[in-house]
């Protein structure tokens, strides 16, 4: 059956196969987990039946999407499980290893199939051989006999072999005999799943993790946005205070000048100013309350998203079991894994970060902690060592403990090494408690002087400590000489993690949120622009902004995009993308808008996160509509009068002109405008045409008669501009006629017109 025989168009098929691959990964992981969970004991009939059911489902799904080799492989595996289900079929440690190899192999096969189908076939052949060996183990003598009591099925459930028909063919069909998938002999009887006590699967929404990650990073961005808004509002608050102070001095000035005839009108103005200042403070205070509400909502959003990403410790434990299996095979050390608290839930992002530390701790335990069998026997310990991983929640903390029943840490030897390596003085070593000594473990010292393949020179534990520190947690070591060691990792259940690009400038590491970094590039010597995807973009030399460098050498660059603007920041060295924890800068650093937040490195150093909005503003000075009042004195363009009967337009114009440095007065119609022009002179008049009382043209005509307004620039804003209007406007010396809706660009063009 070729792809064209299927009922799907190519795109649809590609999508379905991708879905299948994800489903198959989960199914195979479930099989792996079951095998690993039983340790070296034979799984119960129930477990084997479940493994068959999962494999069977996989076979059906593979057929639907036309992956025939997968159908055949799943069928073989299902048959092998059926064979193992026979009571007489033995189960050895190598059976479990083989099954894990097969499930891992199948996942690799599916991934390869998606990338390069031609290269997948050799993988399939290897998997066939492995499955055959799984099935054949029933003929070979067991190399390790297992405690039989563990493999007893629960008494209230029929064992798999009891449910199997004795006549059921368990022989494997050879590939040449293999007919179309639907013709395959079914290795199991059709047993209603309810009989097996398999719970009805809950209905779940399948979402690609990347989508959730994208949402998470958007939510993270909201935090940065909020910080920006908050800063603006704080500025507003400062302005409100300044205004109140100015008013006060005005009042003082008036009070000392009661005789002047202007005093009365000044006093009126002062009163108005007072009420406006009060309004501004009230509005600002209300705005702060609303930002607080926004902060809470963002918090809830993030917590909700984190809950989506919560996963149980099971995946981590399964991974640990697989690691330990590989270690056991590589070293021959006899060790079993015991897991507790698999249901403990925590952030998937945290879980992913824990894989390496757990692997490292297992390696350390196998390489250093577990004694040789004769040593264990002499101490009265069972020949096979046990490593226990226990997960539990302790308040807001996730606690992961990795314990071994090995020799424990020789604190005396560690003390000696701390002194020998010059890290501790003799006096300190004498004063330190055993707990202090254990705390020093993995901060550059190891108990053993020699390194081996598995567990380096204590560097492994350094990495564990660093990873956990970066996650905002800590590592505690508890050791009982001769009885074992426990590494206790305590860390927050979830953290505000964000993806960021890290780079070095002037000897320090900085970060930019990854959502704003598209790629890295090279900035040529003396270049003020760089080419990104065939487009020249401006370069910001971070080494001169943040460092002391004045040179313009060829350097690596980070491509930063914000609000549709792209630029390149040249840096000393790219460190690479990292997951970082966002720490707020606090009120004292808030005025430094260049920095959005900070993070703490694995070694405890503070690293500053640059605000991409500010970086972009430095090379696109016009891009940012808002003129930061702290960024220097604003150039006053003059006093403008805006005349329009729409309040919305008056507000919009006030804001647009305000940003260009105009002091803006408004009037709702021509008559009021005329009244205002009698009191004050204006440097610019912007007027609508159709207004009650006095129309725009009448207003302009009257203004032109006034000496003071004879040549004042006048701009007409209108929703209808016909040739007659244009002619009249020209006669009246109107600078420009702008059609509504008004945009900032149109307005700027009109102001620039001559």
């Amino acid at each position, binding site marked *: 059956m070729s792809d064209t025989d299927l009922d799907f168009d190519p795109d649809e098929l590609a999508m379905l196969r991708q879905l299948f691959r994800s489903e198959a990964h989960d199914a195979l992981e479930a099989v792996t987990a079951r095998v690993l969970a039983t340790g070296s004991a034979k799984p119960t009939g129930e477990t084997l039946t479940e493994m068959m059911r999962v494999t069977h489902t996989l076979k059906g799904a593979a057929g639907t999407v036309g992956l025939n080799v997968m159908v055949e492989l799943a069928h073989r595996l299902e048959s092998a499980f059926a064979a193992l289900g026979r009571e007489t079929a033995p189960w050895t440690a190598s059976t479990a290893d083989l099954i894990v190899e097969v499930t891992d192999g199948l996942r690799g096969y599916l991934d390869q199939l998606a990338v390069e189908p031609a290269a997948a076939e050799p993988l399939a052949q290897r998997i066939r051989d492995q499955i055959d060996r799984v099935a054949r183990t029933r003929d070979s003598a067991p190399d390790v006999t297992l405690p039989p009591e563990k493999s007893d099925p629960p008494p209230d459930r029929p064992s798999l072999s009891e449910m199997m028909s004795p006549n059921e063919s368990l022989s494997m069909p050879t590939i040449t005999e293999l007919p179309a998938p639907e013709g395959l002999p079914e290795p199991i009887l059709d047993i209603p799943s309810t009989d097996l006590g398999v719970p009805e699967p809950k209905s779940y929404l399948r979402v690609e993790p990347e989508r959730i990650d994208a949402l998470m990073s958007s939510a993270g961005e909201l935090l940065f946005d909020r910080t920006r808004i908050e800063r603006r509002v704080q500025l507003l608050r400062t302005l409100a205070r300044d205004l109140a102070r100015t008013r006060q001095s005005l009042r003082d000035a008036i009070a000392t000048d009661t005789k002047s005839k202007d005093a009365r009108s000044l006093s009126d103005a002062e009163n108005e100013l007072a009420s406006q200042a009060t309004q501004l403070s009230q509005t600002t205070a209300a705005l702060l309350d609303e930002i607080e509400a926004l902060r809470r909502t963002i918090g809830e959003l993030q917590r909700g998203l984190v809950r989506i990403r919560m996963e149980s410790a099971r995946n981590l434990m399964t991974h640990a079991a697989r690691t330990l299996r590989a270690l056991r095979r590589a070293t021959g050390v006899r060790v079993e894994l015991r897991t507790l608290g698999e249901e403990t839930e925590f952030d998937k992002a945290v879980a992913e970060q824990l894989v390496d530390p757990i692997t490292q701790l297992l390696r350390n335990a196998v390489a250093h902690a577990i004694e040789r069998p004769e040593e264990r026997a002499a101490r009265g310990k069972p020949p096979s060592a046990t490593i226990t991983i226990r997960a539990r929640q302790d308040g807001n903390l996730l606690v992961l403990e990795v314990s071994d029943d090995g020799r424990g840490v020789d604190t005396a030897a560690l003390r000696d090494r701390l002194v020998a390596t010059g890290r501790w003085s003799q006096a300190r070593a004498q004063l330190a408690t055993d707990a202090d000594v254990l705390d020093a473990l993995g901060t550059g010292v190891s108990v053993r002087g020699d390194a081996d393949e598995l567990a380096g020179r204590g560097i492994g534990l350094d990495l564990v400590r660093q990873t956990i520190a970066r996650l905002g947690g800590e590592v505690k070591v508890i050791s009982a000489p001769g009885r074992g060691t426990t590494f206790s990792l305590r860390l927050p259940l979830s953290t505000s993690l964000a993806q960021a690009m890290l780079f070095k400038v002037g000897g320090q590491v900085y970060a930019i949120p990854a959502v704003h970094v598209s790629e890295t590039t090279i900035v040529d010597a003396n270049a003020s622009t760089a080419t990104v995807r065939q487009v020249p973009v401006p370069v910001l030399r971070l080494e001169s902004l943040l460092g002391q460098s004045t040179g313009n050498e060829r350097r690596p660059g980070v491509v930063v995009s914000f609000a549709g603007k792209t630029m390149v920041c040249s840096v000393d060295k790219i460190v690479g993308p990292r997951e970082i924890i966002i720490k707020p800068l606090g009120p*004292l650093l808030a*005025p*430094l808008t260049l920095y959005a937040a900070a993070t703490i490195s694995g070694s405890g150093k503070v690293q500053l996160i640059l605000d991409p909005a500010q970086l972009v503003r430095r090379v696109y000075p016009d891009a940012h509509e808002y003129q930061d009042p702290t960024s220097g004195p604003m150039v006053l363009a003059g006093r403008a009068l805006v005349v329009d009967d729409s309040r919305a337009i008056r507000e919009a114009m006030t804001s647009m002109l305000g940003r260009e440095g105009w002091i803006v007065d408004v009037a709702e119609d021509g008559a009021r405008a005329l009244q205002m022009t009698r009191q004050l002179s204006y440097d610019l008049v912007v007027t609508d045409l159709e207004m009650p009382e006095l129309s725009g043209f009448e207003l302009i005509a009257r203004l032109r008669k006034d000496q003071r307004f004879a040549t004042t620039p006048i701009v007409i804003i209108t929703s209808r501009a016909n040739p007659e209007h244009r002619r009249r406007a020209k006669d009246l010396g109107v600078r420009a006629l702008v059609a509504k809706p008004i945009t900032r660009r149109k307005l700027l063009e009109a102001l620039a017109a001559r």
Partner: protein
Amino acid sequence: MPELRNVIVFAIGAARYAVELRWVREVVTLGFVTAVPTAHPVLGGVCNLHGTILPVLDVGALLDQPAGPAPRQGDGALVIEADGTLCGLRVDQVDHVASLFEDGGAVVDAAGRPLTLLDPQRLLRRALELVSSAVPA
């Protein structure tokens, strides 16, 4: 001669200062100090204090005197908390907790030596002013 109890006396260079103990959250040895480029010299850098970001300030610059040396890893610092804001003050030496007296308008310690009594609330307000003033265009 009015008395002010529970002040912590410390030295920066040749100058001696005191601050009431109630403002001092802890006395620490600074970890790695990250410089904050473009910031006013009053901000010597930022430090990791138990997972939070601690700005380290220069007392000299806060009092409109020349700034002292930039804070470095291993320097001593007083962690001050006032009005919900946390900051570190780099110090050369922390002497002792003492009582202060007023002697003819000057603040002196029990031995009659003059020193400067710092007002953390005012210092933090000044710090915010200075940090805000130096925001580059």
